[in-house]
């Protein structure tokens, strides 16, 4: 039972354009969501997060949107840069729990 799903295994975007990565979840008890970025042979690094009391959080080129009614969140990267090429994982935390639930990841490739 995949509670957090990233349905696009890969995404290719031209440098300078917007990258949109999507994530869906099924557990309505999730109240905190995170995006992690992972380069090959490295551990995931925290990118941005959002609490369920918000619908948008912005940090520089990165914006996360949360649509609770649709149980959907997305990560927007504008403008996309070659260094953004990586695998992106979304993760969710249930209120009162200590365990993150991860999606399968989306491999983002930024083309020059």
């Amino acid at each position: 039972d995949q509670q957090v799903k990233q349905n696009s295994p890969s995404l290719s975007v031209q440098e300078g354009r917007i990258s949109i990565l999507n994530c869906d979840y099924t557990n309505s008890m999730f109240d905190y969501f995170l995006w992690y970025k992972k380069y090959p042979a490295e551990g995931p690094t925290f990118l941005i997060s959002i609490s369920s009391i918000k619908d948008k959080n912005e940090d520089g080129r990165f914006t996360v949107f949360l649509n609770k009614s649709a149980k959907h969140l997305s990560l927007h990267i504008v403008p996309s840069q070659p260094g953004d090429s990586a695998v992106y994982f979304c993760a969710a935390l249930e209120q009162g729990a200590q365990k993150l639930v991860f999606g399968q990841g989306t491999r983002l490739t930024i083309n020059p």
Partner: protein
Amino acid sequence: NAGVTQTPKFRILKIGQSMTLQCTQDMNHNYMYWYRQDPGMGLKLIYYSVGAGITDKGEVPNGYNVSRSTTEDFPLRLELAAPSQTSVYFCASSYGAGGPHMETQYFGPGTRLLVL
């Protein structure tokens, strides 16, 4: 401040051998976690700990054991290695519960394990 460190970086084991994956964090985090990542898959939680002396099972604990004798260290033990345990293992830590940012987990660089 090294963050989360893991050793070894890579290891080849024969079926039935045992080994310990080491994890240390220097951020004084209460919570620590072990994940495995199989190709094309997300991270699956093996074990976690909310403090020294306290551990609990995650989603895929079979074949593994952990201990947490200090705040800094959280070793993962494989007793009888099997090919199904071929994976990349990540250790992570966080401050813990208490609101946004407290739960954010910080990851080590990973240990790549091959069981033949």
